[in-house]
């Protein structure tokens, strides 16, 4: 299987037909350079509709906010699929969004958070943690608004250590209490910016991880990052996400040492992963179960899909169990086999069919609050598919050869079933119809769910 395609799937969301044609014979070094160049040129996002915050939003305002957050969400998916955007930047943002899992109900805060993440996504991990600690969306999500001197709220301090930096087993309950004191007064105002409320801050002496001093939040983060375990924890998570769920401890140890010695340089870490030989080992290729967002973004990118009604993008995320800006809890998405059950599996296998043939979906997403027991079914995914770019890169009219080329482009591992079967079940069509049908068959193979 192609190493280039592996790189583009793990560092991005696969390749468009043009990209595949242009880059399939590139060296890894050249492709990696290009990915980092694009990501560094990506820059901040331009604001979509965001409304200003009010103390007591009305029902109408809340509804608008939901709509605007929804637009931020679909804009992310559209960017992930767009060959003119940096897919690597989108991939890193998605990873950090899942790592610093945070649910935003306010569009302005959601927007600011994603830009904060983009700014530091390939920078220094210390800057990233500090920026997230000062991010109004996170401050609200983990109750740091309520973290005040004499009345500390430990939520942020606990998750900072348990999930964001060092992981369980390397701190005590007392450390959490002391860290919480250091973050008192880290708050945000109605314009959605960080403010330090001096009167709520505890300036007293704290004892944290064996050190004593008048620490504030910055220094707590410094002390956490001084522990080598933090580098180990982050590298394990990065490896599991970008390389393989099954951790190779020898490699992760090496990465952690390097990450620690580089003073938490994320770019250097990612570069050494993508340029290593082991990244391209057979066991790492085509073995990761695509997340719903990976799946949808990948389909759009490879098959040139534009959604007429972007609600369809929200519907698919909901039905498959991953909604951007709305992770299940602060631990983020678990991933792997947890994405798959009988319901999500059938929807996944049929998804491209629904898009190509505009056929009935007939699936109702859950609503735990609304009075109607179930949400209305989304019957059609209104989308336009443009297969012309894909047709252009096919070299022949020969059906057998076409199946080979399409599989090669669309799949990250050889199908376990005989390719003749695909041909047989696509044969009722001729010319373009055959290609369309072959795409529908190949993308409904279980192998298509892997990257």
């Amino acid at each position, binding site marked *: 299987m192609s190493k280039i395609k592996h790189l583009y799937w793990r560092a991005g969301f696969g390749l468009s037909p043009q990209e595949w044609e242009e880059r399939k014979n590139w060296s890894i070094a050249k492709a990696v350079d290009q990915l980092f160049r694009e990501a560094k040129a990506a820059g901040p996002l331009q604001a979509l509709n965001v409304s200003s915050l009010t103390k007591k939003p009305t029902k109408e305002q809340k509804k608008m906010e939901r709509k605007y957050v929804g637009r931020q969400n679909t804009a992310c998916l559209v960017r992930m699929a767009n060959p003119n955007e940096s897919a690597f930047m989108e991939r890193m943002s998605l990873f950090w969004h899942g790592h610093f899992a945070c649910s935003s109900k306010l569009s302005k805060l959601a927007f600011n958070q994603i830009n904060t993440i983009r700014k530091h996504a390939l920078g220094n991990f210390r800057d990233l943690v500090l920026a997230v600690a000062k991010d109004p969306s996170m401050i609200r999500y983990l109750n740091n608004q309520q973290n005040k001197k004499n009345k500390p709220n430990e939520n942020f301090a*606990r998750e900072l250590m348990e999930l964001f930096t060092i992981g369980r087993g390397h701190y005590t309950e007392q450390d959490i209490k002391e860290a919480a004191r250091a973050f008192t007064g880290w708050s945000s105002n109605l314009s959605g910016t960080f403010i330090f409320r001096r009167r709520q801050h505890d300036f007293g002496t704290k004892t944290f991880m064996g050190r004593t001093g008048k620490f504030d939040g910055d220094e707590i983060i410094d002390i956490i990052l001084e522990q080598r375990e933090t580098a180990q924890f982050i590298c394990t998570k990065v490896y599991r996400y970008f390389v393989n769920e099954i951790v190779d401890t020898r490699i992760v140890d090496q990465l952690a040492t390097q990450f620690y010695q580089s003073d938490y340089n994320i770019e250097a870490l990612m570069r050494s992963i993508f340029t290593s030989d082991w990244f391209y080992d057979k*066991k790492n290729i085509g*073995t*990761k*179960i695509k997340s719903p967002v990976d799946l949808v973004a990948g389909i759009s990118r490879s098959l040139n899909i534009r959604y007429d009604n972007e609600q369809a993008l929200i519907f698919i995320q909901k*039905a498959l*169990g991953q909604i951007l800006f709305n992770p*299940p*809890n*602060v*631990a983020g998405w*678990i991933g*792997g*086999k*947890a994405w*798959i*059950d*009988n*319901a*999500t*599996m*059938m*929807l996944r*296998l*049929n998804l491209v069919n629904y898009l190509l043939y505009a056929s009935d979906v*007939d*699936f*109702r*997403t*859950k*609503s*735990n*609050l*609304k*009075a*109607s*027991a*179930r949400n209305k079914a989304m019957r059609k995914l209104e989308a336009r598919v443009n297969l012309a770019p894909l047709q252009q890169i096919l070299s022949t009219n020969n059906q057998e050869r076409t199946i080979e080329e399409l599989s090669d482009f669309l799949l990250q*591992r050889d199908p*376990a*079933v*005989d390719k003749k*079967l695909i041909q047989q*079940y696509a044969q009722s069509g001729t010319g373009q119809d055959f290609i369309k049908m072959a795409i529908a*068959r190949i993308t*409904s*193979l*279980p*192998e298509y*769910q*892997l990257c």
Partner: protein
Amino acid sequence: MKRRNFIKSSALASTALWVPSFLKGHSTDTLLKTRSGKILIVIQLGGGNDGLNTIVPYRNDLYYKYRPSLGIKQKEVLKVSEQLGFNPEMQALQSLYDQGLLGVINNVGYPNPDRSHFRSMDIWHTASDSTEYLSTGWLGRYLDSDCKGCITPYHALEVDDSLSLAMKGIYNSGFAMGDAKRLRKATDNRFLKAIAQQEHDHDHENIEYLYKTMIDTQHSAEYLYQQSKVYQSKVKYPNTPFGKDLKQISELITADTDTKVYYTSLTGFDTHANQKGKQGRLLKQYAEGMKALVEDLKRNNLLNDTLIMTFSEFGRRVKQNGSGGTDHGTANNLFLIGGNLRKAGFFNNGPDLQKLDKGDLIYQVDFRNIYATILENWLEADAPAVLGKNFTKLNIL
């Protein structure tokens, strides 16, 4: 991967008929009889049902003081004990109470309650502490444990298009089926059936898992569709999606479907405003649904083998709010229905309205004590293994 062995290509290749992995070693004959006696039905009231207006402490002055207009008038309450009575819309449930088929556990909750719907629902689904985050549900972990006869993908069935967290395990999960006919249609794909019949050789567990899930789903959809046609209930259920779900469950049970746990939900209980009418209609629907289900099961001599547990993610604030509703609260009542309860009626006293925590009820029974009891005494499972801790069993089953 203890019980559900992965697909062995030879088994598929060597048989002309398409037979999924979990049927290996079972003749169709024995498979149809592997359901071991007892059945659990879990019913989720989504949105946070107001327990105080469900089981009303009609003798308590504080109740009327906190709820001057929302409180249910003494003369309207369906009184069943010296202290407690049902919401007037729940006549149907009262009849089950009168027959000794209903058990009510008051003040059920957990330490450090969370008032967010989503978080509290997750806590109920995963049976976690309120400070921990688990990614598997209590019934999912039951499927993962060495549960007796757990060989089919539909051992635990949720009547919905998608699967709740409660039903998700690491190795095994429940099965989601909103409607037997629609599921069958979604799986009715010639090509997917053809690839299922092919010989496969998988070199990675993830691809193996995907093929297995696909094949299991195809077969299960067909089996459940056939099962759904075996018996047509004559009992009248509420003419709502919830009523339809209950009817489907009852028909599947009567058809001796190889499913031990059923899961369904009724939502809309988030009554911040104009609660009385809204909650009343939902409670009526719930109560009449339960009555119909019980009648159906009784006719088919299955009531003694069935236990129905009804819960909500939290109860509501004791004091009514300014819009004729109530805000998110904490402890709540939980219902058990069945022909085989050790203790029918009220398990414990109603809430103590004198001792509140910032205006909220204080829980007395941890819901995980109830889960533990059901797991051990009803499902014959190892409760500490499933719940990760030892919770004392209650004298209810």
